[in-house]
């Protein structure tokens, strides 16, 4: 057995080194035009070999607690596991590995450790720290593109869109590849340039698919993101196809499962929607998924099960608070969507908005402020949320409802119509509320 494991490890390590070089080259390679979207094919999980590599690295660290290269590699693998599974203990492990690496060798000589730490900070929603470390990284390695990717990411999450945009253009000057492509696509989507975003994600997908070995999670993510782009434009058939493709690549991809549930609901297939959400939640109980499942149960008359899901959303929120999490946006929105605990929800949104002023933070603040009866603040915030021209039915819906509360019927009617025209079934529960509100406004 031991022999076999050793053999496996050697192979795995060889593979890993190969993988690292393969991906390293990615920064150098330049995308030529926008290749067509490759067909989806199942990519076998490499978790067994990856796990063997991880165990090997962990053993190395036990033998030599100063092996910073092993720490850096481990941090990378833990972050990959985190992306694949959503298991936050991997975040904790990645954080410890990155810090241990930097304890051995300071950031100036240890860009790998610093990059890992920055990624951990972004994943932990400590964006201000991430911004500082990314900045330091750009100073140490001014010619590489990845420090600017990370800097742009942190700035984007903090809501500093102009700075983020300039960081991304620095990034663009220094390299192209999957990373830069998806970042530019994402910024385009926020700016309401849906076609630019779609092309960007397609380019990223083509680049990722051309890599060997194929990065399973990256490819699935790109396909899922294409689905999200199509869904936001109300193109449910295309969206469903992309989600199915993502699941072909990576069968247990919880993001695609949940989105597939949502698009099934938009197409009127509530049992199918419920099934997909249940599968997603089994893998990763994201409160947004749980709340959506509760809504679907409620719509199909399963009130008891619906109440149980709603209770679970609150309990997850409570667990997060007891664990010291700062991020409570989803719980705040859940409260606001279901007209419960409006004051609490508003306070949560205010607290979070102090830390980061991104457009969705502004939207959460606006929506909870409306429910808490602070219409003026809601109006200010929702304009703030729409400042980039984002084409998002939910934002339009919120703006319409706030305008209605403010007594501006015309504006309310405009935005509700825009929401429903863009994405008629943007949410199983809220879309019908939007429709009802529009009818109410229509009545003199």
């Amino acid at each position, binding site marked *: *057995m*031991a*022999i076999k494991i050793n*053999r*496996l490890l050697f*192979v795995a390590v060889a593979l890993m080194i*190969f993988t690292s070089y393969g*991906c390293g080259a990615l*920064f150098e390679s330049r995308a030529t035009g926008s290749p067509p979207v490759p067909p989806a094919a199942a990519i076998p999980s490499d*978790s067994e070999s990856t796990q063997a590599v991880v165990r090997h690295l*962990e053993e190395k660290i036990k*033998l030599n607690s100063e092996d910073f290269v092993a720490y*850096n590699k481990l941090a990378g693998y833990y*972050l990959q596991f985190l*992306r694949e*599974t*959503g*298991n*936050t*203990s*991997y975040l904790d*492990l990645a954080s410890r590995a990155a810090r241990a690496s930097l304890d051995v060798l300071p950031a100036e000589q240890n860009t*790998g450790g610093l990059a890992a730490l920055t*990624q951990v900070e972004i*994943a932990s*929603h400590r964006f201000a720290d991430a911004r500082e470390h990314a900045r330091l990284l750009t100073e140490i390695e001014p010619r590489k593109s*990845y420090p600017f*990717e*990370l800097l742009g990411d942190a700035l984007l999450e903090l809501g500093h869109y102009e700075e983020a945009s300039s960081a991304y253009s620095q990034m663009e000057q220094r390299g192209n590849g999957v*990373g830069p492509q998806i970042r530019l*696509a994402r910024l385009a989507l926020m700016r309401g340039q849906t076609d630019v*975003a779609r092309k960007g994600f397609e380019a990223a997908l083509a680049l990722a698919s051309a890599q060997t*070995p194929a990065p399973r*999670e*990256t490819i699935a*993510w790109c396909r899922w*993101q294409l689905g999200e782009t199509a*869904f*936001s434009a109300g193109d449910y058939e295309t969206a469903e196809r992309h989600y199915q493709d993502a699941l072909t690549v990576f069968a247990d991809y919880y993001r695609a499962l949940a989105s597939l549930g949502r698009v099934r609901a938009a197409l009127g297939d509530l049992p199918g929607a419920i099934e997909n959400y249940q599968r997603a939640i*089994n*893998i990763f*109980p*994201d*409160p*947004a998924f749980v709340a959506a499942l509760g809504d679907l149960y409620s719509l199909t008359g399963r009130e008891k099960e619906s109440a*149980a899901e709603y*209770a*679970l959303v609150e*309990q*997850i929120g409570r*667990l997060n608070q007891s*664990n*010291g*999490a700062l*991020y409570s*946006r*989803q719980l705040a929105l859940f409260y606001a969507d279901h007209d419960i605990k409006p004051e609490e929800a508003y306070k949560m949104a205010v607290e979070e908005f102090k830390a980061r002023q991104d457009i969705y933070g502004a939207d959460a603040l606006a929506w909870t402020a409306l429910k808490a009866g602070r219409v003026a603040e809601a109006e200010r915030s929702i304009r703030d949320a729409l400042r980039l021209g*984002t084409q998002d*039915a*939910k934002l339009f819906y919120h703006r319409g409802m706030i305008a209605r509360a403010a007594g501006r019927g015309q504006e309310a009617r405009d935005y509700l119509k825009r929401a429903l025209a863009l994405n008629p079934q943007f949410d199983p529960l809220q879309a019908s509320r939007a429709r009802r509100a529009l009818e109410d406004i229509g009545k003199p």
Partner: protein
Amino acid sequence: MIHRSTTLFHRRTAGAILAAVIFIFALAGVSFAHPLGNFTTNHFVRIRVAPELVSLRFVVDMAEIPAVRELQIIDTDGDGRPSDEELTVYANHAASAFAEGLLLEIDGKPARLQLVSSYISLPPGAGGLQTLRIECDLEVAVIPAATHRLRFEDTNHRDRAGWREMVVTPASGITVFNSSVFGNSITDELKSYPEDLLAAPVNERVAEFSFTSGNVPAGANPLMTREGRPSGQARDRLAELIAVPEITPGIALLGLLVAAALGALHALSPGHGKTVVGAYLVGTRGTARHAAFLGLTVTITHTLGVFALGLVTLFASQYIMPERLFPILGLISGALVLAIGVGLFVSRLRAATGRSSHNHTHSHDHSHAHDHTHVYDHAHEHEHSHGEHSHHTHGDHSHHHHDDSALVHSHGGREHSHLPPGVDSSSVTWRSLLALGISGGLLPCPSALVVMLSAISLHRVGYGLVLVIAFSLGLAATLTAVGLLFVYARRLLARPFGSNRLLRFLPAASALVITCVGAVICYEALVQAGVTFTLPEGLLGMFAAPAAEPGAMSTASVLSLGLFFGLKHAVEADHVAAVTAIVSEKKSWLSSTLVGGLWGVGHTISLIVAGVMVLVLKIEISEKTAQVLEMGVAVMLIALGANAISKLLRGGKIHLHAHKHGDHLHLHPHLHAPSEEPLAQTHHGLRLKARPLLVGMVHGMAGSAALMLIVLTTIQSASVGLVYITVFGIGSIGGMMAMSALVGLPVQLTAKRFARANLAVRFFAGAISLGFGLFMVYEIGFVDGLFA
């Protein structure tokens, strides 16, 4: 790891979609943190194997979030709290559902687990929430047999994230080996998860292992602990001795006795050179004094070895891994034994074949009075010169063989030994005894090492040392006892037969045994050290990397590997058995060697034919076909063995003489010199080339399926594949030539002078082939199920 940043972005989403929430766990302040967070479903499985029962403990530990969901199901009356009754109903239901998902196979056949009991509890979790813990005990009866292979898979909650831990625990008297899982748990059945380790969660979903109530096959990997040490019960028992809270004289005495007993028992486990000691002493004229000296050497070496290794573990483990030292020590020990064996074999064989003047120069001034007639046209002087006269009535000098265990008698007042020099008492050199003792004690028993280490950590170094010495003494006592047993067994053997003919070859044979044991010890040490001997594993391991990264391994190195594996492949058991059977009939060393070469040529021809079929014509070899081909090899081995033996028994080449002296009836098998049969010789000359070639071809066909699989999975181009096969074939030709020359050696050495020994060797060769063939028929036909 820089490139990870490219995909990190995935954590957040764009447009209308909210990012997935990140749970952040504060490192402090959480009383009971699940390894993967609050939403995991964790499993633990302990498989306990007893001689007739496999029992299973299955534990499910659900963290807060899944527990919330399950509690909603449990609470059937909707009062918000689970009653005992509701919990029991749920536990029974859940346990039977889990049992469905626990897949157990014993020897390839599904075994249905019976649920014995289940238990449910709700330990408090984070945030004032409850967690859920379900424990189930299941079992299944096993048909008693020596060895079983077990495969277990946990398919419950397949898509849920969580810790998956599996452990195997053998009951006393059972040994687990070649296991994919470890012998100990790090979570105490999911009650405490490791917190400060930088370690990704365990993910063990399948367990595979063999267990036996008998002996573990050579080369098997022992069950290990997660810390990388062999997991054994003896170690625990011994380690307990040191960990007593207080040492009173009574406890100390008891501890010493137990340690000695454990040492004595430990010596009986495989691989402690019992065979070597026995073979050595039986081949020499060892006395109790020698045996005692041997015991002392073993004790001192073992004690020192444990101490040294303990110190290494304590102070130098940063630089040297103690477990790495084990195979090295094993290799040294094996090399010592091998050297002793080879040295003894050479000197004894030389002595036994009469290179010394002793055997043939002493003249008898008496006449032999034979009461039977011989056909005196065969080489008689050797047969009758010396050994045999003791059977007959002699004229003027007295024999007292029947009470003379020392085989010393006098002829007319002259005393001499009938054992060749170097085999009688003078050969028990203190130096070789010392070497033997060191080889027996060099490899420290892991349990003794654990005692030493716990003694040091408990500040009971003195007591620990005494325990180790007691343990070593016990070890030595067993080895000494085995040695003495052999010494007396030889004397007893000598008495009724009185024939020193048998005894003359006993020393040489025992030296051969020692050599073989030495080789086996070396082999096992090398296996432990990571040198892979089985072809598929080695090849796959070596080739997996180039398969993933073309060009990393040059064609030249692939081919040189082919040569190496070819050499190694030649000396596999079924090949050696067949060639041995043929070689045993050969008259000259050259023709023996030629047999091996021809075998290799035949083998290579088959492989190339199969290679063309598979690589060029893309014809697949089915598993069934492969089995049938293997069966062909088995039948061939039986035929070769039977042929070799029957040839010995027929054709007037051998005949028996019966004669009586005193109360003893003797049978004299006689073998005629080959020169008597010029016709047969010609006959053999004709078949010399065809038969080994054919045998090699059959072997090649049978082995081709396995080889092709490897070639196909590792080498992309057909031409490189064919070249590889050819190089592999050349290697196998060379390997088999060397092997057949080696096998031919004892046959040739004995043929000229000792017809009887030659007969034995040839019979042995035939029997090996026959026996191995029968074994293969059983393995392929019944174990692998060709006949099923």
